[in-house]
């Protein structure tokens, strides 16, 4: 039985196309998981992560990796309850912000305490993966050094899938 953090990392790696290694390297995994659990609750998070593992397992068994994304879209991303939470996890990884859940979600599943748009932490801001994805630094942090801007950007290659 894998831990919830491991399952969270597995989902996040597929969702962001950053490797587990890169995700763990941000130091933010535990905090993001805690944030989504605190706001969306255990049941929703476990359901989302279980369905992802299931999709992965089906894809592995069939030898067709494209099935994974199809199942994920069908069972998680398009699901009114799980979809917005899954998308929030993606956005949190990229910019360190928890975005307030959509109004339809709140009306259907109830308002959650703490569900406002906020930066998870100053470190989360600096660890946003979006900047890495575009070969830049988060403005105001991780400065690349004098004159580096004159060179072409270094954009990391995507992990193999």
């Amino acid at each position, binding site marked *: 039985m894998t831990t919830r953090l491991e399952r969270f990392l597995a989902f996040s790696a*597929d969702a962001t196309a950053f490797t587990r290694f890169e995700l763990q390297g941000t130091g933010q995994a535990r905090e993001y998981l805690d944030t989504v659990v605190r706001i969306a609750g255990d049941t929703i998070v476990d359901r989302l992560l279980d369905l992802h593992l299931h999709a992965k397992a089906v894809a592995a068994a069939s030898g067709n990796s494209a099935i994974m994304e199809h199942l994920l879209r069908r069972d998680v991303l398009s699901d009114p309850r799980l979809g917005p939470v899954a998308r929030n996890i993606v956005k949190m990884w990229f*910019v360190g912000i928890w975005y307030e859940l959509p109004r339809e979600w709140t009306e259907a599943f109830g308002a959650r305490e703490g569900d406002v748009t906020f930066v998870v932490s100053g470190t989360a801001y600096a660890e946003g993966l979006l900047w890495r994805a575009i*070969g830049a630094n988060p403005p105001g942090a991780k400065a690349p050094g004098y004159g580096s801007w004159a060179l*072409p950007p270094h954009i990391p290659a995507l992990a193999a899938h």
Partner: protein
Amino acid sequence: MVVVGSGISGSIIANELSRAGKTVLILEAGPGTDSSLVEYEAFLTRFYDAAVKDNQSPYAPNPNAAMPRSSDAVRIWPGQPDSSTYLVRNGPLATDSTYTRVLGGTTLHWEGKTPRMMPDDFRTRSAYGVGLDWPLTYTELSPHYAQAERELGVSGDVETQTFGGITFEPGYVYPMRGLPLSYLDTVVAKGIDGTAVELAGERYELRVRPFPQARNGIPNPDYDDGRGFVPVGAVSTNQVEEGGRCQGNNNCVPLCPVQAKYNARKTLAKALQTGCVDILVQTVASKVILDPVTGRVSGIEVKAYEDPVSPRHTTWTMRGHVFVLAANAIENARLMLASGLGSSSGLMGRNLMDHAYLLSWGLLPEVAGTFRGTNCTGGISDLRTGAFRRQQAAFAVDIHNDGWAWAVGSPYSDLIQMVDQENLFGARLRNALQSRISSQLQLAFIIEVPPSESNRVTVDPAYTDQLGNMRPVISYTLPDYTMRGASYARQLARRVFQCLDAADHTSYDPEDSQYVTYEGQGYVIRGGNHLAGTHIMGTSPATSVVDDRQRSWDHKNLYLVGGGSMPTIGTSNITLTLAALCFRSARHIIQQLRADASLTLPPDAPSDAA
């Protein structure tokens, strides 16, 4: 001497006067401890933690010395001023310009571009029949530009800045070498350099040119006749080694994390070292008090508060020989008008100016490394002056290294669009982020706005803040002259995008609070935070508020300094010019104090309770 405001104008004057042995008291409405790094780091933390990173995000709201915020601007309907936030906006155009009220003022959040004004900009009335002439020429101000470039620590290359009539003293070099152009600038240059433009019968050739910047770069060993230049890094009461050179944080606005960008605290720190300067923070000037017999200023009434949230305060009167209002164009005029001092010219608060910014944004066909470097390193300066200024406003063009951030909130808006609307996920999301963010090109046209008496700051007792001070009421619109420039700017942007094979993504939302139409076309015009012209200088008390030394015509021991004294602003970000003016005024005040033996000495204490 009493100085109201600890921004760049007040700091330069306080530093120069204290070096001449004068005793200076600075009054700052906003908060500020000393110049400790702890406080500066707290701004940075606040910025990191802010979900909306606008140019006031590092600075805590303070109802006792409120700051306008760009998000405050809402659509104004005729006859219905918007008073829901600090600036009362009377319209017809809602300005979204801001200024920062903390120790060091707006230089904490400014971007730091420091182009000199062009010689023509000082004589637009005689040269082009538009606006006003200055009582000063470029040549007269030139030595003070050099002083300002030293104080601010400007990086630039004379070879790239000698154009359009701008000249430098023979052998002059900037303190530091120019910052390199960004990779994005060079991509744009490849596409547009050499493009010929015909305007009002004259031919111009476009090229990407760097901007001089008040940001630490590589010191030029030839500076100061070979004596070189030592960059001033972060200000701190304890030793700290940072900010000696720009690191490319791409965060000049709203806060350089290492203070490689100049802020007025660097000048204040030097002033404090003289031992002749005191600063009172959380002390809001509320009234300029005149001696009824002489008409000279006898004191400044202030309201001092302990807690920014609470309106509890004590009222004091500060006395001195000479008084300097250096609180920015809006606050200077607000204070004078709230004191019943409208200037015998009737011009106090009038001729409010700000640059009109028109944004155009497109997507380049290649990854151009957007979102790296200082906020802006280069742009197009070839249409900053010319015969066309008889008909339409001049402009400069900034190539933004921070993509479409200003126009649409990139890259956050892109991420939300891709994840929530386009349902992108995993590798396709990564690819989209890469291809659609690092190829963003935003051009910001900084367009000239000539003086107009109906663009103005007033006060109204119906609108006060929680200390009971009257708030500024802004009436503002853009003249057709500026809009003709904006219309041409939009055409030029299309041409630039065509040259670059870039897809134009520009669209102006009719619901935007700054949406304006001109000849049937709609535009969104943003403010530039380059507030100027509310107490213009001139040659006569009938047609101006201050003389060419920024001394009030009406009150001989009162100086109104800063952008407010500028009769025109051309296409130059105003800070370098207003800094130069303050060096000139400081020299004059020192001479005046020496010469003017008729001044009566004040009591020993610089202040006494009212």
